[in-house]
């Protein structure tokens, strides 16, 4: 009896010992995959494609992988939106707001269109019924907007984005659109194509290009300086100017820069035009001549926005630069885009 007791006791003690030893193999179980997320000053792997500045000074930026973020302190800190609710995170290529900032749209790859009615805090996915990438949105008012993109796509809405009406022009890529009033608009794109509408986007007519020829380089941007003067720019500095309100266009007249411009913006309070483009070039267009200004970056500029308070340009490889002197000098924000908490889109 006593012996059985000792045998049992020995085995129990041994089992207890193994129990004590066994957790050794479970140590260092797992590192916290979410702890210490990086917060670098410049997210060089991230590209920004569009920017808008609202009347109250809020800047809204869109970029790849469904990125939407806003800043209320001129780009020092940012709040990032989370669009991951079971949605494919497409790159977003353009953002535009109404003049009072009450409504805005962001468009991107896969025909993605998001709308915001609260100055960029929350975004709602809208049904574009398109798969083609939408490269630019031109916002006319809170009901009317047109988006353009690849595969000849021109999408317009006149009900605040509830429905989008598509127009197709072969398989051309359209890079930019501009409206001088709710009825008159222009679209530019491949093969030096310029389309014009006089009915608010319902119908479009070819003004130039639209011929598949090898020497027809694409137009990337269009902007109006006033009711008569308009500038179209494109690959490697090609351009077209109009002095009659967009009725006719004359190619190859801008002197100065030969870089491709990917964005052109006319600040409301100025008589000049700013072009942003390849290799970080920012040029000021004035009276038929483009003059480069210091941009503080070598990365391509893809979006620019001007406001009475400050100006902002964004681009590839985490580029965010601001100007406080009407676009004459630009400096990096050294921003921390991930610093503040994210909120979900709807």
């Amino acid at each position, binding site marked *: 009896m006593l*012996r059985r007791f*000792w*045998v049992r*006791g*020995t*085995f129990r*003690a*041994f089992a207890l*010992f*193994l129990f*004590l*030893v*066994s*957790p*050794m*193999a*479970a*140590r*260092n*179980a*797992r*590192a916290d*995959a*979410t702890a210490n*997320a*990086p917060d*670098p000053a410049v*997210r*060089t*792997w*991230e590209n920004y*494609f569009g920017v808008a500045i609202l009347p109250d000074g809020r800047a809204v930026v869109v970029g*790849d*992988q469904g990125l939407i973020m806003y800043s209320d302190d001129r780009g020092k800190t940012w709040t990032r939106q989370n669009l991951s609710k079971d949605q494919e*995170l497409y*790159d977003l*290529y353009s953002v535009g707001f109404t003049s009072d900032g009450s409504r805005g749209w962001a468009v991107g*790859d896969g025909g993605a269109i998001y709308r915001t009615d609260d100055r960029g805090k929350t975004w709602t996915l809208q049904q574009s019924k398109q*798969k083609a*990438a939408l*490269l630019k949105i031109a916002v006319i008012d809170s009901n009317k907007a047109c988006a353009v993109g690849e595969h000849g796509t021109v999408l317009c809405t006149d009900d605040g984005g509830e429905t989008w009406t598509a127009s197709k022009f072969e398989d051309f*890529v359209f*890079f930019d659109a501009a409206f001088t009033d709710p009825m008159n608009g222009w679209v530019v794109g491949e093969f030096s194509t310029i389309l014009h509408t006089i009915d608010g986007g319902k119908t479009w007519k070819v003004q130039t290009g639209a011929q598949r020829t*090898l*020497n027809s*380089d*694409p137009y*990337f941007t269009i902007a109006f300086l006033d009711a008569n003067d308009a500038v179209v720019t494109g*690959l*490697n500095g090609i351009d077209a100017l109009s002095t009659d309100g967009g009725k006719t266009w004359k190619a190859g007249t801008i002197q100065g820069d030969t870089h*491709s411009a*990917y964005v052109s913006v006319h600040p409301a309070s100025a008589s000049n035009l700013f072009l942003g483009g390849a*290799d970080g070039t920012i040029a000021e267009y004035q009276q038929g001549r483009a003059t480069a200004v210091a941009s503080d970056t*070598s*990365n*391509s500029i*893809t979006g620019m926005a001007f406001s009475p308070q400050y100006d902002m340009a964004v*681009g*590839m*490889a985490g580029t965010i630069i601001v100007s406080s002197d009407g676009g004459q000098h630009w400096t990096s924000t050294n921003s921390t885009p991930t610093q503040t908490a994210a909120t979900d889109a709807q």
Partner: protein
Amino acid sequence: MHTESSFNIGKIILRFRAPIGILLASITVFMVWATIHLQVGTRFVDFFPSYHPYTQLDEKYARSFGGAETLVFMLRVKDGDIFNPVTLEKIHDLTTAMDSLPGVNHEEVFSLGSFRVNYVEAQSGALISKPYMFPDVPKTPDGIAALKRNVIIHQDALRQLVSGDLRSATVTASFNDAAINYTEFFNDVEKIIQDNQDANNEIFVAGEPMVRGWGYHYLYRLLGIILVSLIIIVIVHYYGIRGIARWWAPLMTGTCSALWGLGFTGLVGFQLDPVMLVIPFILTARDVSHGIQWQRRFYSQIEQCDNDVHTAVVNTTNLMLPPGLVSILADIFGIIFVSFSGIPVLHHIALTGAVWVGSSLLMVFVFQPIVMSYLPPPRLEGKVDEHLAGGLEGAIDRFVGRFLDFPTRPGWARTLLLTGAAAFIVFGLLSGQRAEIGYRTVGTPLYKADAKVNTDIQEIAKYFPVDEGWVVLETPNYPNEQSVLGPDPLRMADDLRYYLRARDPNVIQVTSFASDIEKPFNQMFHYAHPKYLRIPDSIGLSGNLWYLYLTGTAPGEMERYIPTQQANATCIRVLLRDHTYQTLTRLLDEIEAFNSTHVNTTQVENAPQTGFSGILTKLAGFFQGEHQAPVGVAKPGLTQVTSRYLGGIAGLYAGANQVLKVTDFFNLTLTLIAVGFCCAVEFRSPFAGLLFILASVLGNFGAFIYMNMRGLTLTIDTIPVVSLGIGLGIDYGIYTMAAIRDEAIAGRELTDAITTAMRGTGQAVLNTLFVMIGGLSVWLFSPVDFHVRMAQLLIFLMTTNAITGVIILPSFVSRFKPRFITRYIATEVGDVGGGGGNGQLRVAAGR
């Protein structure tokens, strides 16, 4: 066994001493021949678990994606940036020199001056692929300024080759380790550095070949250390027994065992890594220790038997063989279980060590008695104890004398000691749970943190990734929509880049065909417009871009991304800051989480499912917590895509970490069970087995306390030494306990038996301890930090085991009177421990 009535192994050995002696001597001579053919060498892949899915993944794609043996030169300027004629010329020269090193994979040499490093330029109607700085280095200010501007524009793509501050540039290459002669390689690299370094251009070098190369660089110093430590062992041993006749016998048997061990290593074709030389030394020192134990007992038997050599040899063998056998079995068990890790280098060490230690059983307990039996009785000048009183053993004797009655004297001191020992066991177990696996600093722990090899790695890691892991997507063949050229698999690869870089500061860059080729080519194909820096929206366009890239690049370049013409696999490279445990574990978790929302497979499904390897891998997964991982549900466009990870050097280390975690657990548990079993058999009591397990924990888990304090982690390098420590250390306790039992059998009462055993065996234990410490202390001066730390660790282990064996175990026996001892004592009845057996009868039948 230890009585006259038992199986008399001593007599049997001496009866057949001629054939046995000739056989053993012949084998030893043969082993001399085999030892001559032993190769000092390193096979890099031997350091990683061969069956592990990470290793297998690496092996499968290493030829295409580049070997894990990568060398990096970093050239850093002190003033200005790299864009000056001298520095640019040096980058070019370093590239050429790197391409000339033996064993280099010529298709894997990259630098700003390499023709394989290109950018794409869009011109009207064409895409032009251009190298940055090949074949000529720009010399004019305009040319250099153009290069600088070009580099800045493509800086993110050149993240591996030019630092963000433009003051450093790298030249990298991968090597085939089978073609590397590490000594020549090291010298060639040093010459390249000397030839290209100047006042303004400093060169740093990193990579596995260089880490190994340093070991070969120190080879002769290490051999010198072995020689000096062996000399010290001889001196300590000689002085310890004051040159008493036949003092050389333990050294002879130790040498023979070493020849067997080294000869076996040569015979089976294993190679001896220079850094691992500390292990053969430990084994040799241990062999000598066993020999000393035997010889010391032989001298006392010679005295007791009035110089009758034959009887003395028989008695000594009968007395020493059982505890010796148990001790050596413990040694073997301590090392053999690391063999199951599947890591070839550990397997080699385990087999070699087992043969080596096993041979000492034959040498010390068979060959040494046979040699002694052929020699005339040693002429002892007076009593051995009196002779030794003036030497080291005399000093030890006086030292031990102070503690002789400690274990047998009841009181607070003994209670405190035993309580403290119990607390130490618990503390050791807790420290064992906290012992860390894998590397935890940048660089290699083999060398000091301020050693050149580490300062170079640390400097390079400031600006560039030094490790890389591979995630491999395996897909149907092109033109299937889910082939690697399909939009969805391409998007997945690019999404992983974004996912990791947005989350993990240790991930410096993620490169893939999708991110590095398809997207830029798609952009260039669309007038270089930035909004086309994205995945093509059709497999047709993607295939065209693939073809465009293929036709414009050097042979072998495509294989880095897509290894087959069928386009059914692609590599996503994750470039890491280091390969520390935390970095790798975090990365694996992140990849697993990403995959769970993209593809069907999980990490565990990649593992082998059968055999011992499969069990180990499953256990590794279990202990990693993978059993909790969700099984991913594939996206519609990825249902036929399999994501396999983690290849590359990071994968090899991650696999080793997982295996070491399981190996450590198995090794400790099995070794302790084996020790317990052997001791239970030897002392014929399960309780004795448990007691020795606890003694092993007490003596050896202090190693974990020590490792935690010194920042040591369990790695491929340290685990065999820690394992050896457990097996080797328990010998002391076994010898002491056997001596107490033998004294009890001889008729002494318990207190007297303990005191006598402590005086005799305690002396021998301390003598061998000093021999071990004497030899190990020389390793404290090794240029290899690993040796220094292991020597410290082993000295610590040997000391704690000696204290356990000589003081704590006797105190336990005196305090708790276990029956496996007291049953041999007629006048006392034990009150602790089971074991059965009729002690009274055995004593009566005994002496």
